């Protein structure tokens, strides 16, 4: 989870008191996770303004302009989509005999592929964390 937090530039929740799972002492180590996931999943359940406090265990600078994880993921998705559309267009141009550089077209395809893989890995990590959370017994 800390991996996802640092990638998204999101600070951990300021205190355990914000999480409902703290009532069960057996799962105290898991306690911060639900609050974080709530933060990841949507802006509707986002934390109050205390979230932007400098308390950041990972030491990752949090810019106040950084949106919610949903916005970041959505932005990444549309970026990846745009790169793939661009690559598709370039391939189409190359195959229909237009004067485009072979190297540039193939690089565009490769960059789109890399961007997609990165996005996919982050999505996998997120789903993995979500599954872990679902299995928490309260």
């Amino acid at each position: 989870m800390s991996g996802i937090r640092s990638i998204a530039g999101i600070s951990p929740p300021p205190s355990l008191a914000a999480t409902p799972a703290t009532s069960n002492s057996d799962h105290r180590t898991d306690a911060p996770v639900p609050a974080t996931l709530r933060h990841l999943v949507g802006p509707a359940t986002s934390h109050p303004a205390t979230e932007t406090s400098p308390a950041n265990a990972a030491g990752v600078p949090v810019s106040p302009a950084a949106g919610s994880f949903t916005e970041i993921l959505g932005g990444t998705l549309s970026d990846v989509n745009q790169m793939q559309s661009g690559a598709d267009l370039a391939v189409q141009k190359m195959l229909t005999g237009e004067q485009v550089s072979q190297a540039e077209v193939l690089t565009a395809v490769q960059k789109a592929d890399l961007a997609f893989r990165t996005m996919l890995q982050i999505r996998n990590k997120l789903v993995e964390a979500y599954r872990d959370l679902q299995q928490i017994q309260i």
Partner: protein
Amino acid sequence: MNALDISTSALVAQRVRLDTISGNLANMSSIADENGEANPYQARQVVFAVDESVGDRNGAAGVQVREIVTDDADPLYRYQPDHPLAIRDGQWKGYVAYPNIDMSTQMVDALEATRAYEANLGVMEISKNMSQETLGILA
């Protein structure tokens, strides 16, 4: 991703260089210009220059073809008095001017362009692998 862009700029540049060499070799015997006038082809050379628009803020930069210059070497003269494009008067009367292109030089240049192309492909492979390996952090 910057490394990929930089390498791509080099690939494009080397490709232009190879195109130019192809043109030089193809025109080794061109004694007339496109209007049919007796005007031997002059070898062309690419001029590479740093391209700051490709690269990153830290100073890494790509490459671009700044211009393609034309040699001003004297043509080779062959005595062919019956040739319709032979020079009519002056010092070289009866001679035909042929392009002064050295095939060995052009071939060595072509090899160098090929090697440079391969080197940049190698760098691309490395940067691609680095990106893919980095994704392993999350896996």
